[in-house]
């Protein structure tokens, strides 16, 4: 469980090509991170999300017996699933990985203040390390899936979605508020670019 003396944190700073690396020096952030509590290694790399970057993490987890990982890169909305899967591949519970957003919420918005951006990056990494020292493994919840779909709106987009779903064997409700499906397309005369009729 959290905060015990056996914590071994690995920290990875992504340069994201020039997206991060042209504003701050990822190596400086890694150097700073290497002194944070429980951090056993800190590295920077050109593209953490690429295969070589992910392999680096997986290899380190095995070799250095890392039990917590911090990736400082882009937004969690972008790559949290990627890095969770990456650490899980190496046998770590996916919830023992934390990200620090040093791109969308740092270098992309402070490009005119590289010093401020560097300080912020360091502190965001330190915060992620602080959090990861308190996280514990979680087991995902498995829910049953009802294998049916509902499409709301019976225009050409909805019809096309419903047909594809049904053709894949999925029973589909196509709910249309008007009397007939077809949407705007049904009202059109000839349609570009083929100039054939719409229905």
């Amino acid at each position, binding site marked *: 469980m959290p905060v015990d003396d056996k914590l071994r944190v690995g920290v990875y700073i992504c340069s994201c090509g020039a997206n991060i690396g042209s504003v701050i020096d990822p190596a400086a952030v890694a150097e700073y991170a290497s002194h944070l509590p429980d951090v056993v290694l800190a590295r920077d790399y050109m593209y953490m999300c690429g295969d070589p970057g992910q392999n680096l993490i997986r290899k380190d987890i095995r070799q250095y017996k890392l039990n917590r990982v911090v990736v400082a890169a882009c937004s969690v909305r972008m790559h949290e699933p990627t890095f969770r899967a990456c650490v899980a591949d190496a046998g770590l519970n996916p919830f023992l990985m934390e990200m620090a957003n040093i791109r969308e919420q740092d270098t992309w918005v402070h490009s005119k203040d590289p010093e401020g951006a560097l300080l912020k990056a360091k502190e965001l990494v330190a915060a992620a390390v602080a959090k990861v020292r308190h996280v514990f493994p979680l087991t995902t919840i498995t829910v049953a899936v009802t294998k049916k779909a509902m499409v709301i709106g019976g225009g050409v987009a909805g019809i096309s979605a419903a047909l594809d779903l*049904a053709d894949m064997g999925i029973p589909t409700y196509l709910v249309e508020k008007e009397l007939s*499906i*077809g949407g705007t397309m049904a009202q059109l005369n000839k349609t570009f670019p083929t100039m054939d009729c719409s229905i």
Partner: protein
Amino acid sequence: MVDAARQPLIDVMAYSDVERVDGYIGNFRAQVRRNPRYVLADRCNGCGACSRVCPIEVPNSFELDIAPRKAIDVPHGQAVPLIYQIDIDNCIKCYQCVTACGHLDAIDFSQKAEVVDLDIGAIVVATGFDSFDATKIPEFGYSRYPNVITAMEMERLANSAGPTIGHLVRPSDGKFPHSLAIIQCVGSRDKRFNEYCSGFCCMYSIKNALYLKQAHPEMDICIFYMDIRTPAKGYEEFYNRARQMGIRFIQGRPSQVTEDPVTHNLFVEVEDQALGQVIEMEAEMVCLAAAAIPRGDSEQVASMLTLSRSPSGFYMEYHPKLRPVDSPTDGIFLAGAIQGPKDIPASVAQGSAAASRAARVLSKDTWEIEPIVARVDAERCISAQGKKCGICARACPYGAITVEQGYAAVVTPAKCHGCGGCVAECPQDAIRQDHFTDAQVVAQLAVLLKDSPQEKILAFMCHWCSYGGADNAGTSHFEYPASSRGVRVMCSARMDQDFILDAFRRGAGMVLVSGCHPQDCHYITGQQVAARRFERIPRTLERMGINPERFRVEWISAAEGDKYARVITEMDAKLKSMDRGQIIAETARALPEINNRLKRWRSVPYMADLLTEPELEAVR
């Protein structure tokens, strides 16, 4: 259309409204209301005998009210499903239709709306677009001058299945128009109305011009445009064909359309950009390419499904580049013009894409969801000690908590969506949220506010909206001062008053709490729980001697990167205008009171270690 009706696995529920949707990925339940047609679907064979005898004519919205329909009718001959319907408000109950229907006996005046529950695992939202109301630009005379029509009306008037059997005529006198002026960008690319380009109107105007020119080579057709936008495959060639056929293209946005009251001919006044001078064209008909706009009910549908809307009003995708058909809610996907103006090929492609994203879920027996749920520490819950409480249950948007006096509160994990509202509301700190525990959040505060806290803005962000807004500021490269430090939780409901007090205790110069707009909240009412809590905070701060202007509440959607950047910029300016010594003095003054309030927190696991006194240099 017909294919959909023929596919046995598709249940076409036309003339129906989705009234409610509950549940989560893999397990949604929708309540759908089937409106009464007063005609039985399983008996009506679509022969139309009823309609022929019906004496009443009513407006037909399918024909844009250009032509009427009968009180019992179908909107058009190719309707799917081909089942007649009675416009009951206009029906005079003469029952001639019943007689005409005869032994089929399909007409049933006693039919009632029927509400059905559908269990589904995924939802595709494809509710399309509406057209801009051209009367909002009075200079063009739409609805005032009979021969000014919209492009949609043109589609019906030129349509061989339409009210004029394809003979284009002037509404004023029923005569063929020998000259036609088409005006582009009506309500699009116009800062007064919609900033965006509607995308497909250049192409449909060229289409209509081509079609008419082919049928009537002598017709004078002129398109007034700002820019011609024909970027898709084969579209530029289509445009070139129109030019070769003698359709005139004049660059310039007309300033006004006037009418000769006798002939009802129209005069289009425009500054021709090529000539650099104002010209006037006389036309027997004017057609307006009205903008594609979001559906009138899009806000309502968005709140029913917890979707977000972009500033334009169209639905927001999870990620504009990488997840363009996923909505922000797991298991709900977007297709067609509801996500932004789209022509037919793009709408069809997106429909297929949404189907495949949905099938990714529906092809599996089970789906894994994040275990970020609330858990009760029975020993701390005062209900277990026989006291009356239940605050947590009242805060929960999903009814996931049951509290019975004498027993500890119980969270049903499958119902809990992990907003963290109960965690923040529980006065006993008896509930924790996995992956966003008090210790996990406070550990971040301790680090972020270790050095020079007076110069920092501590920004609490919710995962779905304000964190997304901050990301959007990034993808848009909106610069703002580097003084903010973000802490992410799932919902603004998780932003405990104790977090805010702790941030001030540690000397933070400013604290921002930010979350979704009420209608965008991913946890139904989580935002409301938060908003009520935040309302009380300025007074609490004031009583402690902290200037309440150091605390700010903002609702920022995932699309509002500009707002996020602006809020931080304003807070930074405010902070810089304040006296640093004063901030430190306020912190020192409030310290004992805050420490006192946070006493109970120390007994929460790992919290005692984290709640050490702020380093003296911070309050020096």
